[in-house]
């Protein structure tokens, strides 16, 4: 049982790290703000989600697990808001900004 959980954790966290890596590369390499945002939110959303998922079996209490999920949810909320605001600023000032 614990072996399966460990394999699951490693796989999920590994995948999460991959998404973060990909998102970071995208952030640095993509040409315009909107596509950069796209890359960044992927890292936030999927990367962090997978890492949290991988960590869940390793938590000691239900409260800790809830906190981990709450972290993910709050980052989602903040990321979505920030992307909205950045996107709007881009539209207002033009993509050159």
């Amino acid at each position: 049982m614990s072996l399966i959980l460990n394999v699951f954790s490693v796989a999920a966290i590994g995948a999460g790290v991959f998404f973060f890596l990909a998102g970071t590369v995208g952030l640095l390499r993509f040409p315009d703000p909107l596509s950069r945002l796209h890359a960044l939110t992927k890292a936030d959303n999927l990367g962090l989600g997978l890492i949290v998922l991988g960590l869940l079996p390793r938590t000691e209490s239900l409260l800790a697990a809830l906190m981990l999920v709450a972290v993910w949810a709050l980052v989602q909320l903040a990321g979505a808001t920030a992307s909205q605001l950045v996107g709007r600023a881009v539209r207002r000032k033009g993509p050159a900004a």
Partner: protein
Amino acid sequence: MSVLAALDVGLACVVFAVAAWTVFASGAFAATVGYVVYGLLLSLVWIRLFAVDVALTEAAIGSGVTGVLLIGAAARLRGAEATPPEEGPSGSTRLVAACLCVLVAAALAAVVLLLPDQGPTLAPQAMERLPETGLGNPVTAVLIAYRSFDTVLEKVVLVLAVVGVWSLAADRYWGGAPGEARAEPPEPTLAFFAQVLAPVGILVGVHVFWVGADEPGGAFQGGAILAAMWMILMMARLTEAPQSNAIRLRLALVAGPVVFLAAGVAGVAVAGGFFAYPAGFEKPVILFIEAFMVLSIAVTLPMLVAGPPRREPRR
């Protein structure tokens, strides 16, 4: 273990690289953003040093609130960006400065390497007297009991900083609210975000303060989170910045240090000395003081970020 060591080296390199970026980046705004990243990375270093309380403080205040302050300033200073090149010091000055800095860093590094692996420590004494404070977190015990005099005076420093920042107001704005009155409507996305986040954040802030008695956390970290919530609400314009002559605002600003000072003086009557806690009632008294400190921190940090009054007072 070696994986961790490799991670440590990697983290150290990244921290140093981002720090170098904040010094050498060409634009002030980019440098400021670099500083915020740097602060977050630094809290990871603090976790690796097993100083979780410090990591929380660094993330909340060192990186978070300071970041908001500096990014706001950088945005407003954008007009001054184009500094004529002749304002910078000459090449020889730079060389001398660089030599001096390398010298200081090298001397410091040498001393760091010379420090014994098992250094002198006050940890045993701190643990020995921990039971009599009723607390479980030794860092909180240092802040609020063993070295409470430092902490209370540092709260006075925060109030002084508010006086200093407000003193930069124009005379006609004295007593008014900080921040310019803005005409455009509030950003709906931001307002929604603030409405959802604020209740959660307030809960988290109070939680961090409350567990700080026994686990990592405490008045500073909890207060900083509450401060962030208030700042977000003000940014979303769900609430207005208060007038600087409002007695309630001033009461909230000084409540922490005043209650702490009063408790310290009361110690003479009930516990036999300044800043001594009455036997058997240490923990409730400490939590009482901390509650007011949380309030003051939560109000002081946003006021320091908001800057001097910039609107005429309503009478």
